[in-house]
């Protein structure tokens, strides 16, 4: 491995448009780990909303665009386990022939942020200092699709945070893309369960690695007032950076 | 995986107990028949005691004769009215083909003189298990079964009848016997 890792940030459309602070935090974490961060400005969306809605043609169009944009880079890192999982899991099924070969090559160098820092680089100590209690929601696609595992916890603890595990940390929060709009009758109660489990820990923060899940939880919390502040783990750790 | 008769016996006893089976013994072959008679007098006082006479231990230990000598009404498969009387019998006595230490299962093979229902219709099932017939694992037992002609019914009994249908809390005694006892015979 060269001394300085050059990393292309895939910030995701949700972070770019709605939660830019998470993108800023991601850059700061990567730079604290000694990476040189590049931001390919032609990037847009991974296409997951279309794939999960059963619109594979539209999803494939965005997959091709993603591959065109990111193919030249050595490492692609995203602060979303779900978007990284889209590239790993679905591009393979959306494309055929030569395009599929390219998709697989791109997927093989695409990582979720905590996974990249902890597993790929082996860098857990980023110099952040936090005095906070945190409970962690294991967002589904990162957990089950690309094996992110406990990487975010490792980073949070290395930064000095105290993790208090909640009941059912691996149960879905109810977001699920278009599901959260078409089946709000179930998505809402699932968010309530997640927030209640988090509240029971009395932790200050509910951290996770997917901004869309966090926005869904915060949207519910604004109605009910239950649960700790949902926050992306990168944003929380970045607050502890000098 | 455990091996050796003593270890297998301990392991089976633990698994059967976990399945809510009352385990007696091991007793010597000489004592086994008296033990069965004692349980019969307890569970079916004055009533019928259904027996599977063809089961190896039942035949070898002379269980039918001992029960008759003790004055119990022994109900045998060929008897007149067997079907009608079986449901009213207080106890069913069988041997078993083998027992599985891992799962605590009693494997019963149906054949002439070993009907399926003796272990099923009466409220109490007493099963004689020779400690030499204990196998360690279910897969080992299946391999043994696959190596010989299969009976019309090979039934694996874990313990008393139970259900999870009442708020998913295990509740005993639905359609099959509410009590299962095992006499281990050395």
């Amino acid at each position, binding site marked *: 491995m060269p001394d300085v890792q050059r990393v292309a940030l895939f910030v995701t459309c949700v972070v770019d448009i709605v939660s830019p602070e998470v993108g800023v935090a991601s850059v700061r974490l990567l730079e604290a780990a000694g990476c040189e961060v590049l931001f390919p400005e032609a990037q847009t969306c991974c296409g997951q909303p*279309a794939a999960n809605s059963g619109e594979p043609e539209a999803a494939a*169009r965005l997959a091709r665009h993603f591959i065109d944009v990111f193919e030249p880079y050595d490492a692609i890192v995203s602060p979303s386990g779900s978007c990284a999982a889209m590239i790993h899991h679905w591009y393979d099924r959306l494309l055929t022939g030569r395009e599929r070969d390219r998709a697989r090559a791109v997927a093989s160098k695409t990582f979720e942020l905590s996974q990249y820092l902890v597993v790929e680089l082996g860098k857990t100590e980023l110099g952040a200092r936090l005095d906070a209690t945190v409970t962690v929601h294991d967002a589904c696609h990162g957990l*089950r699709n690309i094996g992110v595992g406990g990487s975010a916890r490792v980073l949070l603890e290395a930064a000095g945070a105290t993790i208090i595990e909640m009941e059912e940390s691996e149960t879905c929060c109810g977001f699920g893309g278009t*599901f959260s709009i078409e089946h709000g009758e179930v998505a809402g109660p699932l968010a309530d369960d997640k927030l209640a489990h988090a509240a029971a820990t009395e932790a200050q923060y509910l951290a996770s690695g997917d901004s869309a899940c966090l926005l869904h939880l915060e*949207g519910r919390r604004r109605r009910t007032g239950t649960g700790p502040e949902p926050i992306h783990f990168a944003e929380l750790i970045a607050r502890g950076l000098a | 995986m455990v091996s050796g008769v003593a270890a297998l016996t301990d392991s089976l006893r633990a698994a059967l107990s976990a399945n809510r089976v009352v385990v007696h013994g091991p007793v010597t072959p000489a004592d086994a028949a008296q033990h069965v008679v004692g349980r019969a007098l307890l569970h079916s006082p004055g009533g019928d005691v259904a027996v599977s006479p063809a089961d190896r231990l039942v035949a070898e230990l002379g269980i039918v004769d001992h029960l008759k000598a003790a004055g119990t009404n022994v109900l045998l498969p060929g008897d007149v009215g067997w079907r009608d009387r079986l449901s009213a019998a207080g106890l069913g006595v069988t041997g078993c083909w083998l027992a599985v230490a891992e799962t605590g299962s009693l494997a019963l093979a149906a054949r002439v003189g070993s009907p399926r229902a003796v272990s099923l219709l009466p409220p109490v099932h007493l099963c004689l298990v020779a400690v030499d017939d204990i196998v360690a694992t279910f897969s080992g037992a299946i391999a043994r079964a696959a190596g010989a002609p299969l009976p019309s019914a090979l039934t694996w009994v874990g313990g008393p009848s139970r259900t999870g249908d009442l*708020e998913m809390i295990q509740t*005993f005694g*639905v359609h099959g016997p509410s009590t299962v006892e095992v006499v281990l015979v050395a």
Partner: protein
Amino acid sequence: MTHGIVTPGESFAERATNAVANPDLQRALRNLDIRLHTARAVADTTPEMKDQAAELRREVLADLDGWLDTLEASLTRVGATVHRADTPADARRIVLDLANREGAHTIVKSKSMATEEIDLGAALESVGIEVVETDLGEYIVQVADERPSHMITPAIHKTLDQIASVLETRADGPLPVEREALAAWTHDHLRPAFLRAEIGISGVNFAAADTGTITIVTNEGNGRLCTTWPRVHIALMPIEKVIARFGDLATLLPLLTRSATGQSLSNYVSMLTGPRRDDESDGPDELHVVFLDHNRKALVGTAYEEILACIRCGACLNVCPVYRKVSGHAYDAVYSGPMGKILTPLLSLGEEGRDLPGASSLCGACTEACPVEIPLADLLVRLRADLRAPGPLLPLPAPAGLTSPIGHHRLPGEGFAWPTSQAPLASRPPPRSTRHMVFGAWSRVWSSPAGYRASAAAARLGGLSPSGWARRVPLVKGWTATRDLPLPDRRSFRARWAARESGAERW
């Protein structure tokens, strides 16, 4: 065929809404944690065991017709009679003919999802035959005139006091709200039915092609009674229940019972090889095995073939966050939960349950729990694509060389990887629906960086609010009914990146 459904509604969303708002149902669901059964099973099951079971199931699916022929020959050899039913109507007619010939007045049934699938009970009752469900949970829903809400524990939606009230309608007096007493009452109340029934009907958990042995698991003993005491035993077997070898039970049976109830083996396992033999005192004189197709063979060779590996353990229901919230009746289908969302539209060729595949957050807990490695979440996504076009759902064969049902891979470490089923995502051409047009247009605009930037800027202008959140947005009222909607930030990440690059801001 709608029995008294407790959560009426036209769509899954309506029924789910009613289920979430039903305090009795929510109380019943809260009282038990069905997830725990499966959690134990997952803990006890190694990836190697799952791989082995998954391969045994795919081995059979690779030549389903061949294994069924072998099974039929074996069953015939051991004295059973095989009937082949292409449709539920065929299967009902076969059973009705047998009941007719037998002059049956009473039929006892052991729990069988396949008999639910063909609505057999109603067909028999319509000709005046008394049909008695003998599994306690199944009996409860029969008396309540409902449908099972879970394939393993059919009355899971009912609390103990509700169950006592239901059973009381068949009792001479009041019944105590006490579990042991209710079990004992069931024993005494149903025993006469077993003794007088001329026919026992069961399902089949596994049918071994080499020996012609059918295996049935129960905990109560009703399965044993149904297959022991009546003169005729009819076993209804969906064709995918065939397994290659008797010896495969060593792998598949413990996996089924562990995943279903957390037991290392069910309390009673009956391995039946033919009817009673000469001079045996009990067991049925006749054993009839009905092979039920019902559009299953049409799935072989398509990406949906994988669902035929299912062994009906219920693990996917137990871990599903949606199922755990709404219970089985919200699906308005025989099979509920993740596998039901897939099987219902497929078996009905798209006539039933078209909105079920959409009712999933795609969290993947089902895929992870499945002991035979069916990529359930993937199949849900495929169905969403294939159900876009109106009309019958006819899955097309996967292109040669693309399906690789076996070929699962796992990531290093603790993570779980999805199986690599390689058929293209949609097997049918897309329709010209509004939704398709919208996604098409969106993907074209967002495939261009300029289009993406322009639309994001427009969204920012349209969605400005001091808090960054909106309480009511008519376009997405499905979201705002329960949650505030996040709005675009005043400055996008790329704007901030550009500012940093130009030195205008420092991070």
